């Protein structure tokens, strides 16, 4: 195995699972998510050593493969983001964890894929607005707008029980 292949293999071993999760949250289907990750990693292999940040490249390629962003370029106006968040949560009831997980997945599936992708990149991956815009190939205003709409839709689907912690909110807003 060449040095290049060894480096690539080490990267894949470390990143494949997080990328699979990211793809799943974006497209809502484990099989499609795995296919998207494989396509993204194949692209990354071709460009290996020609890009400085393989993790960012892979993340972008995975999300784009999952929602097919490149086909519909975006051109948006900015929209102010609502800062209103519901109250802090009660203690988690672990006995209902599985039911809750199913309910969460069902709620996420009710949101259009692009909105879901924005929420995932910002609040799970911790990307800034600028980074999310770059990953999705869209203006920062669109990210703001979709964050707002995504949260609104998720709250509607979950019964207004979704909030963003102050730490995560700040982290996701930081450029």
């Amino acid at each position, binding site marked *: 195995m060449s040095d290049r292949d060894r480096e690539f293999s080490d990267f894949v071993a470390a990143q494949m699972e997080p990328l699979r999760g990211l793809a799943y949250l974006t497209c809502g289907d484990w099989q499609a998510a795995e296919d998207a990750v494989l396509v993204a990693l194949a692209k990354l292999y071709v460009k290996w050593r020609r890009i400085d940040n393989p993790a960012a490249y892979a993340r972008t390629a995975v999300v784009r493969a999952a929602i097919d962003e490149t086909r519909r370029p975006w051109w948006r106006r900015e929209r102010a983001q609502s800062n209103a968040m519901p109250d*802090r949560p009660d203690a988690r009831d672990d006995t209902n964890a599985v039911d809750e997980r199913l309910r969460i997945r069902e709620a996420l599936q009710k949101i259009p894929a692009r909105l879901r992708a924005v929420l995932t990149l910002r609040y799970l991956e911790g990307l800034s607005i600028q980074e999310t815009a770059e990953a999705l190939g869209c203006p920062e205003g669109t990210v703001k707008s979709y964050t707002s*709409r995504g949260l609104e839709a998720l709250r509607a689907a979950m019964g207004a029980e979704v909030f963003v912690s102050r730490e995560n909110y700040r982290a996701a807003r930081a450029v």
Partner: protein
Amino acid sequence: MPHELSEMLRDAQADAPPPRYGVQDALRAGRKRQQRRRALWAGTGSAAAVLAVAAAVAVPQLLPAGSGRSTTVNAGSTTASKAPAKAPFAYPSTAFSGTFAKYTVGDLTVDGTVLVTPGYQVASITAPGRGQAYEDENGDRYYAPNVIGHVVTYAKGVFDPSRARKDPKAGAGYFHAGEKKQAIKPGLPAPYAESTYTWKYADDAWAQVIVGGGLKYPATKLASIAQGLTGGAEQPVKVGLRLGYVPAGFALGAAGTTSDYLGATFDGTSYLRLIKGEFPYEKLTGTVGDPFIVRDKQLPILSLQIYPAREQKYDAPGTAAYCPQEGLCYRYTADKKFFVELNGGGFIGNTEMLKMLNSVTFANPADRSTWFAATEAVG
């Protein structure tokens, strides 16, 4: 039970099934892709040499990416210099009609009207060479037209010129060179803002030439595109489908062969945007995409776009309407060569979207003579 969003997203990923692919699969897929790319380049390299000789003047768009601009500039310039006097331009007198005529400036071509709204109409600017590369499900590459920008003419009173900046090189117009933005992370290319040339084409009526800043076009180049603005006979914009059912309150908001995002499109593509509520076309400084905000409130919009079948990523058997996910539904034409995508944006449910798609009458997307006037396409 309340949920913190990041925890909620992590929870949703839990209990994943065992992975189907491993490191070796990724390595194999990468090697295979690299081999295919090498074979592709070897093949297109020889083919391109033949094309470059045969089509340098007559069919410049067939030249491979990156080679077109330098070899076809002169041919384009000759066309411009020998062109007859251009027809005067006038803004359409009726909504959803276009008045752009096709014209060339050097190696650039300003195509006819590609999008109309109640506030402005848009023509695309195409350069020689290939545009965005795509790959179909078989791994075969195909390319979009090389659209490098747009000419936008705004209706009287719609555009706000107060933010336009004067440049001595821009003649009578205002020029802004699209600046390079900061790269988000090392290794990623830094994006550019758009370069714009803004000028007044009639009393209280403004127009813009908008191109990617990375192309580094000088003010004089954009000014020459503006000076070449040529009018054509006013014609209603047509689309490749007609809707038999439209949800209550929605009305035609835009129509053309590209969407509000003004992307490069393929033959047979057409677009309709429906909007619920009055969007005020005033004080614009550019074209409008989603979201359409009025007094901090988002107006509901729906978009329908016809694509060639190879653009489909959510294939399904038959030609019945289907929704692979919430807010996104499709229906194929009878010959399955094209499909329409309906994007509900979360404003209407899939049941309502399916009702809309089931009411669609397709023209032949490949034959524009069969298309419907946009105003008739939305009942």
